[in-house]
């Protein structure tokens, strides 16, 4: 038995990012696939006409080559083999990281959502910094939050002497910073404070007297006049601020029309500059110091040096505690329909979300369950069964159809398209094959709806007719297992269904296979979703005027039902395949 742990089993979902679908050069996708989302059946579409041909005006032969390539691309993505390529790993995510846009009715991944900043806060004191003062404080906390120069942990403010009952209240004496992890304190660099609050302000006075800062101020004064006349227009942060096309062209025009001549003339106006303050040049002294080092402890490490970017000293004694960087809270938006998917609360202490459209609440959650007495880890050539469990988060029952791509005799296109000439060699990615055979015993099944009473259900009383005549769940003995093979559904209860999948790995290494999951459910406009907020009263009014009578909120309006359907790919990994042990 091999002792190596190997990669663990996983189920990753594939996000077909819509931004990239317009680029037909992209080997990952083709517009054919996006239109397939609402189809009921999945055929192996190997005979699609090359309508995804490029718009480029190339010669006939290269165009034909391009058509062949597109054909390959379509075939690969039609059969799911594109999921096995190394490129696809950028678009595969576990369910916990995916969002779902209700309007577009599609999965969104972290790459295809747009981030916007909601608020800035300090991770230590949880003080929310108003956006206006963020820039002036250089994105750092303006209060007493500092970072230890040695270990980068938060420093705490400590009084030099203990507060004794006899002395004045509120600990006397100078204050200094101290680190609880590495026991550094600021007395080692002679940094003490009079008051325990607004330490940043007290530090600022010493920072201003540094020769570097004074020199920079002088330089700025000298160049200020010049800068005001000559500043090149920077791009605005958002083009949405332009009220009309006239304003836009004015901004772009002033930038384009400045020719080099006028710029040269303006530069010459600048007078000679003499440095007012002499910044001491310590380099030679530094070299001497470094050469006479006895132990390397006094030299700062890279990460310590990077915390103080403006001078990055070698000596550890020159590194000062820096103020702590602010963190942000982000809200995420779907790029196509601009609908907000995630919106956190403004307050730094609050961890909840105002809007939370996560994929977990919309698409079935797939998990892998190991059957007892089955070989694990997988062994080459030995058929192994395991269970895939589909959990339905919706309030309606859903039907799920699964499909896996077939093994092909040789890597490359199918041979059914007669019009193709000699195939050019395909790019390396499409050599990826599923390393074995995968059999789904029941590719079509239903999963029950979710309701709150499921939380209180006892596991003792199974529902669903499939459990009849079977021993306790999990299959006690071969008798119980054989009955579950009849329809392939291992267990159907509450809001989840488990099905049996059999794999025969044929090669060593990590075993992964793609799976196309299509599900459809009767959507009822009146019903609330797990993640949405309250239903808007206005929305219900507008929906349909045919049915005049308005019943209670929970009524089913059958004339409004639409069968909503969605399909997505996922990649299921089952870990390492080891060599078969001889029994």
């Amino acid at each position: 038995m091999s002792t190596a742990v190997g990669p663990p089993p996983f189920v990753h979902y594939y996000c077909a990012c819509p931004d990239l679908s317009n680029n037909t050069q992209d080997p990952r996708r083709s517009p054919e696939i996006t239109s397939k989302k609402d189809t009921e059946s999945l055929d192996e579409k190997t005979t699609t006409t090359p309508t995804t041909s490029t718009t480029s005006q190339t010669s006939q032969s290269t165009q034909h080559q391009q058509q062949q390539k597109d054909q390959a691309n379509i075939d690969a993505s039609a059969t799911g083999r594109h999921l096995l390529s190394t490129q696809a790993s950028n678009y595969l995510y576990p369910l916990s990281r995916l969002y779902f846009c209700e309007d577009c009715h599609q999965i969104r991944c972290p790459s295809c959502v747009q981030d916007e900043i909601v608020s800035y806060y300090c991770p230590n004191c949880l003080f929310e910094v108003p956006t206006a003062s963020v820039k002036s404080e250089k994105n750092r906390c303006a209060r007493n939050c500092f970072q230890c120069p040695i270990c980068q942990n938060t420093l705490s403010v400590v009084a030099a002497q203990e507060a004794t009952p006899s002395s004045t209240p509120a600990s006397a004496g100078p204050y200094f910073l101290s680190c609880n992890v590495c026991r550094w304190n600021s007395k080692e660099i002679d940094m003490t404070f009079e008051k325990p609050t607004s330490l940043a302000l007290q530090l600022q006075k010493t920072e201003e007297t540094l020769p570097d800062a004074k020199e920079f101020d002088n330089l700025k004064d000298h160049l200020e006049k010049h800068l005001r006349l000559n500043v090149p227009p920077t791009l605005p942060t958002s083009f949405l601020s332009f009220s009309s096309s006239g304003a836009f062209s004015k901004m772009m025009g002033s930038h384009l029309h400045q020719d080099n001549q006028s710029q040269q003339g303006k530069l010459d106006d600048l007078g000679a500059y003499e440095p007012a303050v002499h910044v001491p040049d310590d380099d030679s002294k530094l070299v001497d110091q470094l050469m006479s080092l006895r132990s390397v402890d006094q030299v700062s490490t890279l990460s310590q040096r990077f915390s103080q970017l403006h001078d990055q000293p070698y000596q550890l004694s020159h590194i000062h505690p820096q103020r702590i960087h602010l963190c942000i809270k982000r809200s995420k938006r779907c790029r196509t329909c601009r609908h907000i998917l995630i919106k956190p609360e403004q307050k730094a202490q609050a961890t909840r979300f105002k809007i939370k459209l996560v994929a977990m609440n919309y698409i079935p959650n797939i998990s892998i369950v190991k059957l007892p007495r089955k070989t694990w880890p997988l062994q080459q050539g030995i058929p192994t069964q395991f269970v895939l469990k589909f959990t339905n988060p919706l309030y309606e029952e859903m039907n799920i159809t699964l499909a896996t791509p077939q093994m092909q005799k040789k890597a490359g296109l199918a041979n059914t398209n007669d019009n193709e000439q000699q195939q050019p060699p395909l790019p390396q990615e499409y050599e990826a094959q599923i390393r074995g055979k995968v059999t789904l015993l029941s590719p079509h099944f239903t999963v029950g709806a979710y309701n709150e009473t499921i939380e209180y259900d006892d596991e003792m009383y199974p529902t669903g007719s499939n459990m009849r005549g079977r021993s306790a769940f999990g299959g006690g003995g071969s008798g119980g297992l054989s009955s579950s093979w009849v329809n392939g559904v291992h267990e159907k209860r509450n809001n989840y269904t488990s099905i049996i999948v059999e794999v025969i790995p044929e090669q060593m290494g990590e075993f992964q296979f793609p799976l196309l999951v299509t599900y459809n459910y009767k959507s009822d406009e009146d019903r609330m979703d797990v993640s949405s907020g309250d239903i808007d009263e206005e929305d219900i009014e507008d929906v349909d005027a045919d049915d005049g009578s308005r019943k209670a909120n929970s009524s089913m309006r059958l004339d409004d039902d639409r069968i909503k359907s969605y399909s997505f790919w996922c990649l299921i990994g089952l870990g390492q395949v080891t060599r078969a042990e001889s029994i």
Partner: protein
Amino acid sequence: MSRNRITAGPGAVICQETYLDGEISIGAGTVLHPQCRIIAEKGPIYIGKNNIIEENVIIFNKNASPLVIGDENVFEVSCYVEGSHIGNNNIVEARAKVLGTTTIGHHCIIGAACATEVNETISDMTVVYGSKSSRRQQSEVFPTQAALHARHLDYLREVLPKYNHLKKLENA
């Protein structure tokens, strides 16, 4: 296997659920939380005064020579202590490991989840910290540490007997 011979000084608080094995001498005022284990397998263990030994601590003496622990130390939860000589006023933080025949001086701090080498001497005022068990010297003892330790001991001596049965051991 040496017979069980456990002695404790006056004022020591030793809870019933502790596991003491071998020849152990516990100083005055020391507090042993429940679920700690002191195993003097091959050689004796001498523990000094006013130490605090918290839950799930394992103090193990695999060597024939005695393991001497000084005064005013704190052994936080789940730490593992072998070593040969531990000084005074040290703090061995949670899940730390003092391995082999290591010697620890005074006023040291072995940080959380850090470990020492199997046989080294840790000098006074050393702080072992960080994920890579880096070392540095602390320039001075934390000003309130001594007072905090005394208050901690007072609190434990008052509260532990309320919720735990205590072992009665013969005086040293």
